[in-house]
């Protein structure tokens, strides 16, 4: 079994105290416990502080464009569905710039695990509001305070019948580790929204703010009850639930494509006889 040290990457360039550090450490532990070696999986990320994540690890990496994490992850997964594909994005990255892709990745139910480092702010571009910023939050860009309503990724995902919907907290690593392991192991599209304090630009949603509000979903909670899941997903403000809010066993996209039944696309070799047959059709 690998040890967390085996996933050591470049030294992180995040701000001291950033919630990303504990996510990184927890992720390494989870992958080691899942016994998935660095070369056996791939991380696709976008652009933002969160999306620098794979550089601070050792693993196959496609660090693409802002917002475009999920299409790349989908392409990789369709080409090689033997490889676990993990997508890492920021809240701006995934819920703003790439919002359309999230909707359709959920619909496809491609077996990709998405971790959104949700600091409720644009970190890398220095403090503009994100889709999950709370209404009224004042920034240099929004002197009137945020006028738009706050996006609720959990409710959105449940509404779309997303196969696995969970929320974690960077300040609760023991719980987060289990979530990561569950999410990576789940067959189908998984969304894990991780509350991640931004110590530099978000002075509202601090460690303290989250700690006062988060609670673990009780053991008797049934994540397969979609209506109850929707009700819980709406909880925000005084109490914020952590854990697996919703899950189902919807058919996975890769399983429904006959071409992928035998082996991954990448394992197919070039087949000249197929060309001859294709030519004959034109006579």
């Amino acid at each position, binding site marked *: 079994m690998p040890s967390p040290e085996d996933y050591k990457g470049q030294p992180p360039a995040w701000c001291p105290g950033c919630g990303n550090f504990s996510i990184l450490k927890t992720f390494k532990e989870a992958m080691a416990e899942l016994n998935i070696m*660095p070369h056996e999986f791939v991380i696709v990320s976008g652009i933002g502080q969160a999306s620098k994540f794979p550089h601070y690890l*050792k693993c196959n*990496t496609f660090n*693409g464009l802002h917002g475009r994490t999920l299409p*790349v992850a989908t*392409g990789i997964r369709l080409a*090689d569905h033997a490889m676990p594909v993990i997508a890492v994005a920021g809240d701006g990255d995934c819920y703003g710039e790439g919002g359309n892709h999230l909707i359709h990745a959920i619909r496809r139910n491609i077996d990709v695990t998405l971790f959104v480092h949700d600091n409720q702010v644009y970190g890398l571009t220095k403090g503009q509001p994100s889709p999950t910023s709370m209404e009224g939050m004042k920034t240099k860009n929004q002197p009137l305070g945020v006028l738009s309503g706050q996006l609720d990724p959990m409710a959105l995902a449940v509404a779309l019948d997303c196969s696995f919907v969970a929320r974690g907290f960077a300040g609760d690593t023991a719980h987060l580790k289990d979530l990561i392991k569950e999410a990576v192991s789940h067959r189908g599209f998984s969304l894990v929204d991780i509350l991640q304090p931004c110590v530099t630009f978000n002075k509202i949603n601090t460690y303290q703010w989250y700690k006062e509000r988060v609670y673990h979903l009780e053991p008797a909670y049934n994540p397969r009850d979609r209506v109850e899941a929707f009700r819980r997903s709406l909880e925000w403000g005084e109490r914020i639930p952590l854990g697996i809010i919703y899950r189902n066993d919807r058919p996975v996209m890769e399983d429904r494509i006959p071409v992928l039944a035998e082996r991954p696309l*990448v394992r197919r070799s070039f087949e000249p006889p197929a060309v001859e047959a294709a*030519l004959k059709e034109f006579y």
Partner: protein
Amino acid sequence: MDYSVKIGGEAGQGIQTIGNTLARVFARSGFDVFTHQDYESRIRGGHNFFYIRLSDKPVTAVREAVDILVALDREGIALHERELSAQGMIIYDSSALKQAYEKPHFLDIPFTALAVEHGGSRIMANTVATGAVLGILGMGRDILEGIIRDTFGKKGEEIVSANINAAAAGHDYAVRHCRRCAFSVPSVSGPKMLIAGNDAIGLGAVASGCRFYSGYPMTPSTGIMLYLAGRANDLGIVVEQAEDEISAVNMALGASFAGVRAMTGTSGGGFALMVEGLSLAAMTETPLIVALAQRPGPATGLPTRTEQADLEFAMYTAHGEFPRAVFAPGTPEQAFYLTNRAFDIAEKYQITAIILTDQYLADSLWTFESFDPAKTVYTEYRLKGDAFKSLPGYRRHAFTDSGVSPLAVPGDAEHVVVTDSDEHDEEGHITEDAETRVKMLRKRLFKKLPLIRQEMEPPIFYGDDNPRVVIAGWGSTYGVMKEAVDLLSGDMSIGMLHFSAICPFPSTGKFDYLSLLKNAEISICVENNATGQFARLMRAETGYEFRARINKYDGRPFTLEGLKGEIDAVTRGL
């Protein structure tokens, strides 16, 4: 023998079915065929036509004169009657058009009544019309019957024989009633291959080992996706309709990164959305094929019509400086081989290769003896399996003499494959180091570019050895320019230059096309756009300025008579 058949009517009336079936009959019989489709951006109504030219020698362009007009609506007659040749005939069904025409070049054939009587259903009126055209031309029915069997065989013997009877009824009616018909066709031997530009690109992708295609429907590129999707299961290809073109290009890049040959396709508006993805492909050095089928812009423009106005867009779009390849085939045959070339170059140099066509080429059917898969190449450039495993270490963007770093399949070895849209070091990790930046840019651009340029074929020359008049063009104008040269070569010393490898601009090393141009008395650049983008490119790349330009930007292709007239006008008094 050189006949033109036009089928005109409303969208939804089955013009395409009649047109495609006739084209297949002619090709199977062994004739040379060229078709062009003129349609509106609507599903029902309006006026569309399907044009077919057939001959016993190669035909590669639209002629204005029509010999047989199949009119499925009155509009068809109003629009096309004046195009009729001296021996031309119009066939129509007066009960369907609710009007009878008494002039001698009209033949009223009761398509619907014959369909009901002989086929048992009015649906077969188009089959009657198809049979009638063959009757008028004096052709037999057996090849049509074979095609009916191929098409309807799965639906059962009853439907097959109903259609055969309907076709026979139309054929017999035409033979018995067309006293004025003076058509005759020589006997030729077939079959010939019949293929449109879009299908040729799809077939080229298959012949190049394409495994993944993602796209978003947009005329006139959709045909490529349809071709591949229809055969994906048999050929072992995954075709995914993305939520938008941004997703389409990023999916293709993901698949390519994972180790398979991947392609996307679109038209101008969708390509605009893919632009950021082209830049991503460049930075991550991920091989990518893009088929860009042009239609007239700006914006939604004329969605179903043709233009060559995205050459500069294809060549220069996307932020940053990086190499790319642009190919502009002139025929379906070139489209097939250049698609293969595009795949090979994209994989070899880890760049984007664009196949630039337009509605005219995408939808036009041409005949050929055959395409030869033996003339295509498939070279495995990826680092895989044991070769990858046996390496002591691996850096995805390692500096090399050629600028090309080994492109490994992630997961095949214990080494990790890392790439980044940020500037990166040899390992693929984000960096802001100035020296690394300069070395990376040199590697990606300056080292690869001359190698890619060497691969670009010079233009094709056709015509008089030492021409006084040279017409030059690129892409889909190949066929009409070639026939124009044939038409005019009796009157003047004329030749043509056709460019299908556009970017990097081909050098004069293999063929000194610049001297040819300079030695001519007049050079004319022919383009289906308003501003002469290729002429501008020629000046920028070589300093050579064409003496004259012929531009057409009404959304329609050049016709043979039209182009000849314009060349005549430009060269008058020479």
